[in-house]
């Protein structure tokens, strides 16, 4: 169910506080965007600050303690569905392990192939999607959203995956305009195009808010069209410590630092107090980062070797009026 109608001319720029307050509800199924880059960490911080409850998080893959693992730690999340989930420096999702052991969290495992198919199916409005992976794995035993099926034409055996009904997708984009057109490039960020498309509502955080003109001069890069989007928030460094193509490198030393805190519960609370609850927004978080590790720590993450298109792409047109009065007579 939509919370609002898509008014095409509506200005959707707002604060992250307002976006999360209006468009994430307790009990929602949330698609958390990104992979090892482009994870909307600041949006997750705000969900934590607003103490949302009983969320179901859906991800294809997610590599940081500062998104879903944080939501689990803070009790925002009751179940998680994923293909791959960990903080790579510690090879595991630390808070998730504690919550699972204590019976506070349900886990549904998929492979990346099958998670991808589930999202693509949801994108198309299907209730299930076929997959060529996960056969005979223990995922089939423990995840009720996976079953075997036969192709009605050939009898070939498939794994069927139930497609999620996603209420809200939180996506970090390189750029977006005030109408909610979100642009991403390099990798199409693995699965965000499908996760956002499948969702009833999309919240975009972006590195840069740009005029609509910028979007309309390069529409091929728009992965999230305006009519899906409910809120747009400009959040520079909004994916840190994961990286952002065209903006900054993944901050592996800081991810390692955060993950080591998360490995021990008392240190985790200290970290969350200092970096999540102790900072009211991303600007404060970055200010704190610079105070603690120095400006050079931030600077070294920036793109050093730029690669721009060599040939401009012409999106121009010719109007059909040029054919007015043009007719090639057929000679017999």
């Amino acid at each position, binding site marked *: 169910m939509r919370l609002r109608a898509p008014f095409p001319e509506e200005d959707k720029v707002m604060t992250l506080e307002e976006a999360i307050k209006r468009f994430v509800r307790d009990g929602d199924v949330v698609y958390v965007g990104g992979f090892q880059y482009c994870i909307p960490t600041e949006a997750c911080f705000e969900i934590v600050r607003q103490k949302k409850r009983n969320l179901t998080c859906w991800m*294809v893959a997610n590599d940081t303690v500062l998104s879903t693992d944080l939501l689990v730690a803070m009790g925002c999340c009751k179940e998680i569905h994923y293909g791959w989930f960990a903080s790579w420096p510690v090879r595991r999702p630390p808070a998730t392990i504690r919550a699972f052991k204590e019976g506070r969290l349900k886990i549904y495992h998929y492979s990346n192939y*099958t998670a991808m198919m589930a999202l693509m199916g949801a994108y198309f409005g299907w209730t299930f999607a076929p997959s*060529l992976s996960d056969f005979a*794995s*223990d995922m089939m035993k423990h995840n009720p959203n996976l079953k075997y099926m036969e192709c009605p034409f050939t009898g070939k*055996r498939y794994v069927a995956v139930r497609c999620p009904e996603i209420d809200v997708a939180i996506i970090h984009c390189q750029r977006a305009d005030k109408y909610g057109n979100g642009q991403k490039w390099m*990798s199409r960020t693995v699965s965000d195009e499908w996760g956002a498309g499948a969702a009833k509502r999309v919240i975009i955080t972006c590195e840069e808010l740009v005029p609509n003109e910028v979007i309309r001069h390069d529409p091929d890069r728009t992965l999230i069209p305006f009519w899906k989007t409910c809120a747009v928030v400009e959040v520079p460094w909004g994916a840190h410590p994961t990286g952002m193509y065209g903006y900054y490198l993944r901050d592996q030393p800081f991810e390692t630092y955060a993950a080591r805190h998360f490995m021990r519960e008392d240190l985790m609370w200290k970290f969350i107090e200092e970096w999540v609850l102790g900072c009211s927004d991303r600007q404060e978080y970055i200010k704190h980062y610079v105070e603690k590790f120095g400006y050079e720590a931030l600077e070294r993450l920036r793109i050093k070797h730029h690669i721009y298109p060599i040939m401009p792409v012409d999106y121009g047109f010719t109007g059909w009026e040029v054919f007015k009065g043009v007719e090639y007579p057929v000679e017999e």
Partner: protein
Amino acid sequence: MSGEKKHERDYTLFEMMVIAAAREIKDGEVVFAGIGLPVLATAVAQKTHAPNACIIFESGGMKRGTPITLPVTVDDFGCFSGADAALGMYASMAALGRGEVDVTFIGGAQVDKYGNVNSTIIGDFTRPETVKVILPGSGGACPMGCLGKRTIIIMPHEKRRLVEKLDYLTTPGWLWGPGAREEVGLPPDRGPSCIITTMGLLRFDPKTKEAYLEGVFEGVSVEEVKANTGWDLKVAPKVKVIPPPTEEELKALRETDPARIYYPPGERR
């Protein structure tokens, strides 16, 4: 074969594993890779015997030749910057499904004698209180094992990793033996081709589909290998000593990763 001999080596164990993996790649093959060792193995193969091998990154980056910068994560700049194509994960998964991938590499926490792999959990999933650790999960591993023509399993050779029974089957290998893949609906002509460990190389008997020791690295004895395997490991009638890296192979590897970013912490410079 003593520690003394090991000491004389001018290459590290990690380098031996990468080069053993590189030798498995044939010219013109398509390799599907996450990060780390497979990226290096493909680069070595390209620079030595397989100049036309090609890599597809799981995240959808595709590039002829070696990456512009070494990718440390699966969707790192090195997969996309200066690549020939930067598609999404759907494109790499689809290539696997269509049977266009020759070689896949997977790691994990446990492997059994049929090449089935666990990368999900240590403990009993149905009894959360018994769980020791939750690992990252399948990710691309299961589709790689299901759909890659030849899967190469990379695993440190330890008794707790080469086990009789997995805690969780994440990625099917030959499952329970001959005919099993057909029975469950998997392509029977695809599956694991070898296990490269820190001690040597295991292949699968074409009849029984069970892993056996084919070769050992220089300085490793068959007894050592058997003692570090969690099942009664079958051994080839004549176990080979795997030739150590050639100068050309070592040069290709060290050129690819001069800063030794991918090397295990103890072997970095």
